[in-house]
């Protein structure tokens, strides 16, 4: 019997879980700091095309987004199924793009106003006519730096 009792005393002590909250808090703070909340919900279908000669869009504070695509199912009854432009949270005409860019530009701090990029997030099934109208509007307000935002992938997959 003494054999058994000896073994018991030699057992490992249980692992202390006292530092578990600390570890979890560390992870929590990491994710809290890297989280970017979506500021506008998408009202258009937005499957971007693929490209492989791409450059990263650094510094999110210097980017203005324009979304283009077919309205999603719930908005199709009101807005139809032709591709539309979404600025912030609402649908807009091409003529409103210029004012939107100027308004967004005015919101940024003065030293950033000259280095802004316009990111065009366009659904791959949209027509170029609408994009050309947007490009004309951008030229009118002198927002010449654009980025055709795409996914990283084989560009020939767009053709299917």
């Amino acid at each position, binding site marked *: 019997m003494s054999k058994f009792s000896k073994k018991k005393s030699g057992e490992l002590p249980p692992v202390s*879980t006292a530092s*578990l*909250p600390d570890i*979890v*808090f560390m*992870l*929590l703070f990491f*994710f*809290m700091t*890297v*989280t*970017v*909340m*979506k500021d506008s919900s998408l009202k258009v279908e937005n499957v971007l*095309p*693929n*490209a*492989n*000669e*791409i*450059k*990263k*869009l*650094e*510094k*999110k504070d210097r*980017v203005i987004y324009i979304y283009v695509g077919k309205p999603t199912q719930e908005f199709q009854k009101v807005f139809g199924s032709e591709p539309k432009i979404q600025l912030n949270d609402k649908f807009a005409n091409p003529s409103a793009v210029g004012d939107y860019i100027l308004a967004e530009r005015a919101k940024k701090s003065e030293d950033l106003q000259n280095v802004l*990029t316009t*990111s065009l997030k*366009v*659904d*791959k*099934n*949209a*027509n*170029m*006519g609408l*994009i*050309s109208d947007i*490009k*004309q509007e*951008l*030229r*009118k307000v*002198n927002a*010449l*730096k*654009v*980025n*055709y*935002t*795409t996914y*990283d992938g084989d*560009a*020939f997959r*767009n*053709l299917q």
Partner: protein
Amino acid sequence: MARRAGAPEVSAGSMADIAFLLLIFFLVTTTIETDAGLDRMLPPIEPPDTDVIIKQKNIFQVMINMNGQLLADDELVDIKDLRAKAMAFLDNGGAASGSPDYCSYCKGKRDLSSSDSPAKAIISLKNDRETKYGTYITVQNELVGAYNDLRNRESQRLFGRKFTDMEAEYLNPETAQSIKDELKEKVKEIQDLFPQKLSEAETTSN
């Protein structure tokens, strides 16, 4: 007096649970990806003061119709062959060896009926209003790819490094300033060898 002995200690045992709850919330809502895409400069709206006369042979015209078919220099071209054609055009270096436009680093055919030098060569891209955006991006991608391939070739020769890597490092905000200054000159040099002249004409509607 017995009541003054102090409030009972609050149990911290559930702290981990609360923290886990928050952690899971942030895990689910996090998007770490950064956007990427093709950078382009639009032409300014004011027309240039003087009309620049460009020789026809220095323009490589690419047209996309509503069905996604390509017309490059008046020939029907498959989109997969576009990059090779654009590179042949840019790298042609047709100017004679004595002239100021002579391109010493070009490895093309030196065809007199094609572009004089990379600095003179212009690619003009036209599209129809009905062209699909996906097709347009593929064509843009191939044309940018043609420039990048040529720049990589020269960069490999001069600095033993790919141009696209150098540019990515130069644009990365985490790169140290001293490395950036060094890269800036190299990037500039390569860009001057093959300047990106991609004109986007206004859309035709028919």
